């Protein structure tokens, strides 16, 4: 349609094309398609979903880890004197530590916390997390902290 004689026709077709391009399939079409898709792909039962298994595995790992942690109580009554001279920084006055058992608990903390605890802190490693050990009283109070790495 390049010759002049067809210009009016080309114009008419352009108008029709423009009009046609404004039309969309009715929403009911999508509803029918979606329903057919869902019939063909029914949702899996919860126990068959990969996410469910990974969630269960995570829970099991946490429980197992907690059990291990609870099984490694430190006889701190005899260890306390050692702890006091083994790099632990007391967070409570030693006189206030009281009696009773205590545990060593592995922990991770932001490196910025080291400065607040009076431990060596390199600002170049700001934002990183460091491994530490907490000396925790049976009451839940953290008595002292030690930088591991």
């Amino acid at each position, binding site marked *: *349609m390049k010759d002049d*004689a*067809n210009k*009016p*026709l080309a*114009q*008419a*077709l352009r*108008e*029709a*094309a423009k*009009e*046609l*391009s404004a*039309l*969309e*399939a*009715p929403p*009911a*079409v*999508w509803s*029918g*398609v*979606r329903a*057919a*898709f*869902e019939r*063909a*792909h029914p949702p899996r039962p919860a126990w068959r979903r990969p996410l469910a298994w990974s969630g269960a595995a995570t829970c099991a790992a946490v429980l197992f880890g907690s059990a291990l942690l609870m099984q490694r109580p430190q006889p701190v009554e005899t260890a306390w004197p050692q702890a006091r001279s083994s790099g632990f920084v007391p967070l409570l006055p030693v006189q206030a530590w009281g009696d009773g058992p205590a545990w060593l608990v592995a922990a991770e903390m932001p490196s910025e916390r080291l400065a607040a605890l009076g431990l060596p802190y390199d600002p170049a490693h700001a934002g990183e997390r460091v491994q530490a050990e907490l000396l925790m009283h049976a009451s839940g109070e953290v008595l002292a902290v030690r930088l591991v790495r």
Partner: protein
Amino acid sequence: MMTFVPWTRPRAAAAAAAADDSAALLRRLARGDAQALDALYRREAGPVYRYALALCANPAWAADATQDAFIALATRPGAFDAARGPLGAYLAGIARNGLRSRWREAQGEEPLPDGDDEGERAGADSSGAADSPETRLVRAQTSAAVWQALRQLPAAQREALVLVDLQERPYAEAAQVAGIELNTLRTRLHRARARLAALLAGPGEAQ
């Protein structure tokens, strides 16, 4: 510093990108990913529906044909073979088959031809000059007149015109949707344009 960028035809590049995208979406669809279906539907449903509607001029039939095409895709995505053409052509082809079934059921309606219909109504093609066809054509260029004239075209010619002139599909894709050779498509298109021009120009021109 100037960077050399190889020249590519924008339309070809866009088609290649769409094909890649379709392949990825179809893989996800085959795994039951509803979002992939949603993306494919948003991209392809409009052209398929418009093709069907322009062909049959019946919104309900066009909607059904579009739905059939997408249900086929949603439930059997593996049936699409990218080596045979783009996804849009595949879906339009399914819609076309759906319309043909409806036409067969509703006897009296005009069916799409299986093969060539170039001999059909060939005498209706008009190339004769009238007193002032351009003037009358301009007057006839209302939307209703154009659509009415389109409906008067033989189905095969109308299909060629819809695919190429109204939907601006590449000739190869249009031929694939219509299930005909490229040369046949060109011939049908030429005749469709001539006949449409005659119909728009006035009653005396089309016969």
